[in-house]
């Protein structure tokens, strides 16, 4: 992956102040501790990676950030507001969008409808006007369609826009899911293993998209990824989790040199 080089050449890009910070988050299911006392922050416009072995609590972390899970302890601060508990709807309306590890698209709907659904919160007309499909509703549908078509162009999925997503190959579905998240014009994008199960070309494409989203729209991105090469190339800073605890945090270079991280990955006895 050659492109990310230019990314690093431009370190002063436009990384801003803290957009999201999670403070002392602990989460347990029954007696099983999924996360223990996790804290980190995410700055505006940066690409922040969360890495760690399987079962380290990475997805649980994302689920806490956008309110799918409610942590027993800790706080989440987003855009200056502090939450003891987030709920998914509030998270969405504040501009947090995400994709899922196992694709969570609406399988019976077309690509176009899936991405249109991502703009749900931006649409306003009432039920009655929707039933009539006149005036404001028609205008609104068209206006959002135009925006969605931009995303479809951007992700290069024009040819399948009317296809039900259930029939698309895996790699394309992953793209559509990214498109649906982008449709909300999020400030913070949470990507749960966007490149899992992809071949090398698909991975390169996806990397390209992630970087472009970050560059063009200035979207802040938190991503979980297993491919170390990808993580080291595209992320600004990395959080490392292991058994629900944070064992490392810093730039890719720092993390790579961290002894605890190396132990976790090479399987040294705890």
């Amino acid at each position, binding site marked *: 992956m050659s492109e990310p080089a230019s990314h690093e050449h431009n370190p002063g890009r436009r990384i801003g102040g803290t957009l999201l910070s999670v403070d002392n988050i602990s989460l347990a299911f029954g007696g099983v501790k999924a996360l223990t006392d996790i804290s980190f922050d995410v700055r505006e416009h940066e690409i922040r990676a969360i890495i760690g072995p399987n079962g380290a609590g990475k997805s649980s972390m994302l689920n806490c950030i956008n309110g799918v899970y409610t942590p027993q302890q800790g706080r989440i601060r987003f855009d200056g507001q502090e939450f003891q508990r987030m709920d998914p709807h509030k998270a969405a309306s504040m501009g947090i*969008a995400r994709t899922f590890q196992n694709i*969570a698209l*609406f399988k019976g*709907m077309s690509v176009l*409808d899936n991405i249109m*659904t*991502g703009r*749900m919160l931006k649409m306003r007309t009432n039920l009655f006007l*929707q*039933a009539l499909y006149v005036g404001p509703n028609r205008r609104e549908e068209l206006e959002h369609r135009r925006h969605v078509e931009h995303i479809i162009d951007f992700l290069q999925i024009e040819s399948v826009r009317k296809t039900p997503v259930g029939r698309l190959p895996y790699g394309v579905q992953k793209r559509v899911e990214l498109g649906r998240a982008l449709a909300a014009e999020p400030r913070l994008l949470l990507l749960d293993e966007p490149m899992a199960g992809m071949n090398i070309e698909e991975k390169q494409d996806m990397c390209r998209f992630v970087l472009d989203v970050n560059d063009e729209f200035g979207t802040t991105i938190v991503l979980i990824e297993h491919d170390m090469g990808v993580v080291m190339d595209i992320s600004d800073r990395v959080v490392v989790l292991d058994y629900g605890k944070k064992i490392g945090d810093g730039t890719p270079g720092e993390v790579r040199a961290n002894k605890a991280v190396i132990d976790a990955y090479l399987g040294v006895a705890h």
Partner: protein
Amino acid sequence: MLYREAGQFRTSYEADQQIFPIRQDRIAFALLMAVAVVGVPLFASDYWLTAILIPFLVFALASLGLNILTGYAGQLSLGTAAFMAVGAFAAYNFQLRVPGIPILVSFLLGGASAALVGVAFGLPSLRIKGFYLAVATLAAQFFVPWLLVKVGWFSNYSASGVITAQKIEILGFVFDSPVRRYLLVLAIVALLALAAKNLVRSRIGRAWMAVRDMDVAAEVIGIRIMRTKLIAFAVSSFYCGVAGALYAFAYLGSVEPDAFNLDLSFRILFMVIIGGVGSILGSFLGAAFITLLPILLEVLLHGGAGLLGLNLSPGTPSMMQLVVFGGLIIFFLIVEPHGLARLWQIAKEKLRLWPFPY
């Protein structure tokens, strides 16, 4: 070749978002409507109008309602007939008790009453899914007809709760002949079908399907699951309620609560499954199929029996009907879960190339 869309370019998103973006479809639909509005009244016999076409339209409306709930929002209901009953009895009572209320307003209020009841019985859907919900809707199915029989007020204290629908009069024009009633039902069903199509291609329709396909993801996008499901229950029950009102006023004339039984609910569910789950067109195809099938079966059975010189016992045709309905449901679920609507789509795709396969 007959059904060729080559050369028809949609140059604006507006053109692409039409209900029928392809010219042949528009022509075919216009022809169909012309037949329904002009041809049928000119040529159809009273038998066809009262025994086939009017019930077909009424059932199509009810299965449209159930399809919104089950096909689009993914919530299975076995209480359709109960919501129809509410619509019928509410419309009757509005006519009876509110002096000078226009009949169409009564129908709408009947639908609105059904919507309220639908929301009440839809409340469990917030916590349960699938067949749990189906069982919960059975409560509506058994409770509502009982209530309508027991509380005499609903039927103006008639014996066993029978109501006789008032005459349909709009602006001094009386809809008393089969043709007139047919045209009225056709107009109402066509308008409501258009509205349903508009709903499912708008924001709420996408929200319904999103909740149906993957509720966690829908929530993360910002869809309020609870509200979306309840709106589905309300809109669906509204359609069923209006269908129920038409069932009483335009089809049967007089009706008792027990006519809205579990059997009717199942029948409408079958229309949805066979016609096409999650398809507006499918609701009509399914209603036509299920309305015509018993008649066809009767003819076949009697013809067959006559030919072979057999003596049919009186219960045979209706038992045969159960077997065929049941068998068809299983067949469609296994072979073509999207029903007749999907078969129609496949046929159209074949027609694009026919008669030259390449």
